[in-house]
């Protein structure tokens, strides 16, 4: 469980008990900013298929999905002299891939270059980003804790991890039977080590429901919760990431939903490592993996 989950529960109880607030859609008088290039890629040694997306930003309330940018030259190079060219996917406009396992080397600098005539002036615009792949230590153990709250049984997936020297930032991907549960940026699980520098910490990574009691839960929980049953395999793949990537993910998560009058700050643009006015991020990760099989105790 994240450190403030219990706070969310308390405020949830308040909302439930007071029950005054209501919502409805609203039209906002915004203006449309000119398009900028959007580049996002997370390269890792975790998959045989690496992808980088290149697209255009659009007015916030535009009715159409954002448009991919075709025909770009997308290349990743490393400080140890390797160079990988990405090819555009025929069926997904603006998506560039490299379908071989990527050998990520720790403590190595990676550079991304995207060349395209984005502004249509006849000359190539170059958008570059640099990042670093960091080595990641092994985890100590992976456990499931049974929780009984408000009459329902659920499970918390804990990873025990011993932090290393220096300021560290971590990204965690959680799988259930090989399906990635938190692949989007908005559902990514990240943490820094400010609260536990150089110590072992129990990280509460994911909250699962009990498949056998799923029907006892309200509809909104059934829609948003993953339910596990005996025999399911749970896996955590995690890596150390740069502070810049950590900031990017947390800012994306904080800004995506708009304002929070009690605990949020003023709306602010999300920081990027894409140069030349682009937005998005380029990151490289070297993952560690841990698995556990769920056996329900009767």
């Amino acid at each position, binding site marked *: 469980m994240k450190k403030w989950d219990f706070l969310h529960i308390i405020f949830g109880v308040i909302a439930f008990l007071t029950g005054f607030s209501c919502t409805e859609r609203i039209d906002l008088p915004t203006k449309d*900013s000119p398009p900028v290039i959007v580049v996002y890629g997370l390269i890792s040694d975790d998959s045989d298929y690496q992808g980088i997306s290149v697209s255009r*930003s*659009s007015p916030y309330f535009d009715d159409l999905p954002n448009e991919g940018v075709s025909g770009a030259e997308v290349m990743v190079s490393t400080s140890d002299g390797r160079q990988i060219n990405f090819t555009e996917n025929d069926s997904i406009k603006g998506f560039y891939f490299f379908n071989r396992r990527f050998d990520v080397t720790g403590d190595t600098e990676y550079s991304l270059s995207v060349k395209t005539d984005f502004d249509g002036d006849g000359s190539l615009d170059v958008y570059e980003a640099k990042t670093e792949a960091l080595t990641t230590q092994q985890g100590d153990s992976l456990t499931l804790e049974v929780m009984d709250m408000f009459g329902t049984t659920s499970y918390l997936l804990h990873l025990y991890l011993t932090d290393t020297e220096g300021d560290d930032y971590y990204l965690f991907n959680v799988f259930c039977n090989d399906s990635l549960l938190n692949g989007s940026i908005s559902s990514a699980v990240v943490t820094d080590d400010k609260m536990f520098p150089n110590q072992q910490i129990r990280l509460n990574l994911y909250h699962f429901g009990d498949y056998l009691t799923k029907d006892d839960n309200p509809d909104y929980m059934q829609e948003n919760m993953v339910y596990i049953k005996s025999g399911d395999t749970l896996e955590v793949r995690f890596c150390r990431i740069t502070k810049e990537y950590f900031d990017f993910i947390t800012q994306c998560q904080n800004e995506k939903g708009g304002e929070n009058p009690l605990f949020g700050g003023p709306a602010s643009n999300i920081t990027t490592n894409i140069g030349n006015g682009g937005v998005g991020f380029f990151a490289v990760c070297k993952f560690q993996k841990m698995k556990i099989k769920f056996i329900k105790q009767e």
Partner: protein
Amino acid sequence: MLIALLLFFPLLLFSQTRTVGGTVCDASTGAPLVGASVSIAESKTGVTTDAKGSFSISLPSENCILAITYVGYESQKIRINRDTPPVVNIKLHTNLLLKEVVVSSLRKDRNVTALTMGTERMSMEEIRLLPAIMGETDILKTLQLLPGVQSVSESSNGFSVRGGSPDQNLILLDNSTVYNPSHQMGFFSAFNSDFMQGIELYKGHFPARQGGRLSSLLEVSTKNDIPAKITGTGGIGLISSRLMIEGPLGSRTSWYAAARRTYADLFLFLAPNEDLHDVSLYFYDLNGKMTHRFSERDNLEFNIYNGLDRMGVNIGHFNYGNTASSLRWNHSFSETLFGKFSLHYTNYLYDLGSDMEGMTVTWISGIRDLGARADFHHLLNPAFDLSYGLTGTYHFFNPGKVYLSGMDLDDYIIPGNEALELAAYLSNEQQVSDRFSLKYGLRYSMFSNYGKNAHTYSAWEPGLGAVFRLTETSSAKANYSHNTQYMQLANNSSAGSPLDVWFSASKNIKPQQVDIVSAGYFRNFSDNRYETSVEVYYKNLKDVIDFREHSQLLLNQDLESEVRTGRGKAYGIEFMVRKNSGRLTGFANYTLSRSERTIPEINQGKTYLAPYDKTHAVNIAATYILSKKLTASAVWVFATGTPSTYPSGRFAIGGDYFPIYSARNEFRKPDYHRMDISLNYAPKAGSAKRWKGEWFISLYNVYNQKNPWIIYYDQDDVTGIPYAEKMYLFGIVPSFGYNFKF
């Protein structure tokens, strides 16, 4: 220099005329009458009683007539001669017919004669008659109906004065600071209305005795009757009940006690889900006070307030609350020199905890003050009505300590710091002529931070006010003040939260400063039945703070690195019309204003609107006496929507859309407006029976206006395209209850 002035002050002998002092109180209850007029017919001079009902007036001759008047009471005249003692206590009898229509405890022509501008007073009678959400009479929400005062968020107790932030308001309960004056995340005031005497708000031009904030001083005074027998007041409402009892203890001692508690959680045992039975969700507050009168010249007062909010489930809890206490000795040295000596203690603390599988986390943060002050009022003659004194407060800042047990982790401690804030002041009210009066003063403040990045700052804070009586019923006024603020709240959200921490000026964070000038025209009509005023103001802020983009303000070891400083300005014009008597009473006001910030590292250095800028604000409050038993009230408020930052673009990653902003606060939320009404029925009004009850029914937001509290973004379940949604807190909220007194 100022200290030297104070030390040698007794040597500054002026030709003295005789003075008389004392108190004015209600003959039946002993309650002091605040703002009662005490005047001398011969010289056409007069004063008003202060928050304790006290006055002191200079006599032009040995024989004269003192006239005491107060709206709702029968006037009294007292002949003064050489045998009259220096202290006279005056008891006024209620004019029952008029008492029903009292809406203000102001001196009848105070609007025109008072030297300080931007000052608002409200009596509890006036506040209680106005509609309140869920029937909870709320001092701070009523305050937001006054010109230049705005709510920072729907239904919040946080308020902005003339474009300033909530932490720029100094809130005092009997002179003790209350750092978080609200309950239930800001929805309810921390002040139990039964225990309060009234409020006085200074919108920037503080009396020299107080300082340390930029925007306003709110003085909340507690009851100060001299009860002849045990009496009480109370109420039973939808969400809380309250009781206040007061009585004598011998002939010289009075005591007062009050309690209030919400009870939503008491009914949770009825919930079908057993886990809800253990949920805690309540707030309470307790007030106590004792006054002992040693003699006509001496009395001692002890005040204590304690309030707590508690929310808890089986795996965690969140508590927060204030304690404020004071001990004050009032002494009359002579017929011209009065002194008040007091000790103060205040503590704001929150405690957040979780307990899961034997692993407990406890997070504690807060601020604590210990203070002492000596205030003197020295009335020499009409030219020298002096106030002077010394104050000192020791602050203990605890930005956060997280204690971890049941796991092999070190506690997470953010080092706190301590600071000493000292001030000396001297001010004078001078009647230069029948038409022209001046008020001028100087405050010298010093702040020493003894923690990380220790530093000492000091500042001269002058104040100047002038009133020119144009006619018997009109005046023109002008005021200037320079205020310095040495501590501020690390709050980055629009409404604020109980978790926000106070932090002090340091080597890296300079004190915030403001210069305020204002001018106004004041005119009363129909024997002061109608008051009107128009005030303009301009504020120039220096070293005003904001926070960097994506700042982390909680549990941050290096909070100062998140702070950005720059300049700000605010200006506006406020119109007010008030009707003080008759069946229909109330007020209407309109404010046109602007508040801006320019901070180099925010918004690319471009000027942006302050979060509390509201171009137009209209408030109308009215009470109508339908009969002796029935009173109706209504309130209508309108304000331009608060500045907001809306996205002008978006980018997509995976299935997620993220906003792109073009500038901070370049848009506004929809305008805010709302009407509330209430009806009070007192079946035994005018009866001689001791127990008197009153039923009330109220409707908050009568026409169901859906004022947005939050505007947030989500993506359509089918298309994935983003849309905006508003969350509004309240539709129509009916409430009813029963108030009583005995």
